[in-house]
């Protein structure tokens, strides 16, 4: 039985395919269209999923859409009329979108794929999220907490889930209704601090590491954790209707700016940095205020989440938890929940954001249609497309790097005196040997291997790798390749076997797909400094020999050369673009930036500076 899951029209369109209870393909549309967080109908992702399963659209047994559009539409309409008459502009913009496309998602799928409408089912959004979290976990029975921004009417949902007689049983205990939403509050503060909403929430989370929680008292007036473990939002501080319309401009009222101060100008660079050495300028009180607000918000949201987890633990009587929702992408919040919630074991799915809902919807529909056995958390994070790179590398042999000069990122080193060295590495040992030498010599390496990551985190298949001990290379990576702000630490990639020698704690099982915030042993902090936050913690991703055998071997070879088998890892992309979806995309990053080496599967291209 084949079930296609689709998530579209919101923030991250994606498609997934479940065959006989197993997720076999999952991809975000952005990987095919070069548009970060592409919300459009995922035609390319669907085509990819069908290609993996070798199916035509009419051969799919059922199609699951990740939410109930009419339920969400009712909520949007209520929100618009509740704010009458100030909501007229957002009402016009949202209705154009909803009445034009979003409300007719089923018809649109039916027409585009030429399938009978009876095959299409709407799965409630939180059910999609909860199913994705639970089915990918190793648990037979668990509590599930969904912390969303706003789907239909509920913003947070508390479930228990189990497999009974081969059937998936999801029981929703409680929900906290819109507009009392932690995700929406975080989105408003994202905009207030000058970041792009539904995109740069991670910047807000990383900025928090440089602040002190001195605004928590004020933020509790807006978002108050209650004694019973729930929380409450005061909507008079917000204009949530504006979050429905890009660019989500000024989604607050004057009450919020009176309380925490003026918003940040998006053009103002923040001077915080994970790298030691001279910064562009010292943080002034205004910069510090932004960091303090971010930290205080993280603190209060953390309190709310811990309260919810404790409440769920009491009501369910279970000691295993599955956590999902975009907020869970913050590693500091996950760590706090791990330490304070009282649950003995916590699972987070590969893609807790909106993109993961397509997989959840498909898994749910599959579980409703046929009995299944639990798959014991064997879901792999690499379910995206793989490519043959031969033709692109053949083309690269005919390219003239001097021609790229004018089209490179501003400030990059000139390529006038560069030549290209292109080689087929042959055996994995030879490839990993060359790349480990390059990394140890301080070169920046683009790494494109096998199937793409199906979640939002770079896990080493579409990655840029650097030796963390080379400060100059890390600076070049941030300034001349990714364009990421220096206050955002890259993840630290290492093998499970090496974790004991580098970290103070054993990384959780989920660190294979979701970076875990773990303190680094004091003796290694100097060498791994660029990967550490202000408290000496790194965002650790574990490379498994089963998922990524060549990368695993590369870590081994790199460890032999430097003594520390750990690499800095970030997504293979420039700022504001999604991770490279094809070898040609990866080559464009190589051509446009100061990346020194690019590896696409078995092929290798190196810039040789003369």
């Amino acid at each position: 039985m084949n079930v296609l899951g689709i998530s579209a029209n919101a923030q991250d369109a994606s498609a997934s395919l479940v065959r006989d209870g197993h997720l076999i393909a999952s991809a975000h549309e952005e990987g095919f269209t070069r548009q970060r967080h592409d919300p459009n109908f995922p035609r390319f992702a669907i085509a990819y999923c069908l290609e993996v399963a070798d199916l035509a659209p009419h051969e799919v047994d059922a199609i699951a859409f990740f939410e109930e559009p009419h339920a969400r539409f009712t909520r949007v309409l209520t929100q618009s009329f509740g704010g009458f008459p100030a909501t007229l502009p957002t009402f016009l913009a949202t209705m154009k979108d909803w009445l034009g496309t979003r409300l007719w998602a089923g018809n649109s799928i039916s027409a585009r794929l030429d399938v009978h409408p009876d095959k299409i089912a709407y799965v409630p959004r939180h059910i999609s999220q909860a199913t994705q979290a639970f089915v990918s976990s190793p648990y037979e029975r668990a509590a599930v907490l969904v912390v969303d921004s706003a789907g239909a009417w509920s913003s947070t949902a508390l479930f228990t889930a189990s497999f009974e007689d081969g059937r998936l049983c999801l029981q929703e205990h409680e929900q906290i209704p819109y507009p009392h939403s932690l995700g929406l509050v975080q989105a408003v503060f994202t905009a207030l601090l000058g970041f792009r909403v539904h995109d740069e929430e991670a910047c807000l989370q990383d900025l928090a590491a440089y602040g002190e929680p001195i605004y928590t008292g004020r933020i509790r007036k807006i978002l108050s954790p209650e004694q019973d473990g729930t929380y409450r939002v005061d909507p008079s501080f917000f204009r949530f209707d504006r979050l429905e319309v890009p660019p989500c401009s000024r989604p607050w009222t004057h009450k919020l700016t009176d309380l925490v101060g003026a918003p940040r100008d998006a053009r103002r660079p923040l001077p915080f940095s994970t790298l030691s050495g001279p910064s562009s300028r010292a943080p002034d009180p205004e910069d510090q205020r932004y960091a303090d607000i971010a930290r205080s918000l993280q603190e209060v949201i953390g309190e709310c989440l811990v309260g919810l987890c404790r409440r769920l633990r009491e009501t369910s009587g279970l000691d295993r938890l599955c956590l999902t929702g975009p907020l869970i992408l913050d590693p500091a919040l996950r760590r706090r929940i791990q330490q304070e919630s009282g649950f003995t074991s916590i699972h987070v799915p590969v893609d807790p954001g909106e993109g993961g809902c397509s997989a959840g919807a498909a898994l749910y529909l599959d579980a409703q249609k046929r009995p299944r056995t639990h798959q014991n958390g064997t879901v792999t994070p690499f379910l995206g497309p793989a490519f043959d790179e031969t033709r692109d590398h053949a083309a690269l042999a005919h390219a003239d790097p001097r021609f790229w000069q004018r089209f490179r990122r501003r400030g990059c080193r000139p390529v006038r005196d560069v030549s290209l060295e292109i080689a087929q590495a042959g055996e994995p040992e030879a490839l990993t040997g060359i790349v480990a030498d390059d990394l140890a010599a301080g070169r920046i390496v683009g790494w494109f291997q096998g199937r793409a990551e199906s979640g939002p985190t770079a896990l080493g298949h579409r990655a840029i790798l650097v030796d963390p001990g080379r400060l100059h290379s890390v600076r070049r990576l941030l300034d001349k390749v990714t364009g990421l702000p220096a206050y955002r630490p890259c993840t630290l990639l290492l093998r499970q076997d090496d974790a004991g020698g580098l970290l103070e704690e054993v990384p959780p099982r989920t660190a294979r797909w979701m970076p875990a915030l773990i303190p680094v042993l004091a003796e290694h902090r100097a060498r791994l400094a660029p990967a550490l936050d202000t408290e000496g913690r790194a965002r650790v991703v574990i490379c498994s020999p089963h998922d990524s055998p060549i990368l695993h071997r590369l870590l081994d070879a790199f460890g032999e050369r430097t003594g520390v088998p750990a690499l800095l890892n970030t997504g293979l992309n420039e700022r504001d673009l999604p991770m490279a979806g094809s070898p040609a995309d990866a080559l464009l990053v190589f051509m446009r930036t100061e990346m020194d080496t690019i590896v696409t599967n078995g092929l290798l291209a190196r810039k040789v500076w003369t």
Partner: protein
Amino acid sequence: MAFFRKILIRTVLPITWRHSRHILATRLLRFAVTESDSGWQILNALQAVDDPKVRAMVLQHALEEIHHASEFTRVSKTWLSELPARPLPERDPLFEMEEGVDGLVFFLAYAHVGELDVFDQFASYAAGVGAPEVADVFLEAKLDEYGHISLTWTLLTSLVDEKRARREVLKVRGRRVYEAWLRFSKGIGDVSFAVLLSTLYLVFGPLLWLPARARLRWRGPQGVAA
């Protein structure tokens, strides 16, 4: 038509652009989206090209378009204290509109006409924009578009004879006029739709305001029946 557009760009646009940073930044971002779409279309068409030399040329062409997109984005960001909306249009591969070699021929003809139009327009925009740093970006892009005009024509005539190539270009021009008409009609439709919706909002708003407020009021966590 092109003549009137040039006049319009050189007279009316500078007035609006110089008086509203928001309009200028939004417009620049739209150019970025168009250039980025061109880059993507080229990368997408790359799958039909086998000759490594041609692939290298096409890849470098994509590099230029992507560079233009990033330059337009960069200058647009310098004009605003708030980040503007980033349009994310649905990708529609031109290359897949026709089967086999015809797909590539159509794509190259379309790209050729597009480059010709943009070459003309960018010169006018550079003259009218009134901000030197933005004019520089237009002029740089214009210079590259000149190269693209000859590249697309060379590739097109390597696939079909010159007579067929001219016919394809004419066909594309007809199609672009039709697309412009569709855009104009959609604009008219959008305005009428907005008027209708505003009326409905203003008529029903006062009636629905109280029930909507009641529905949004805090009532504590909601228990869900099993």
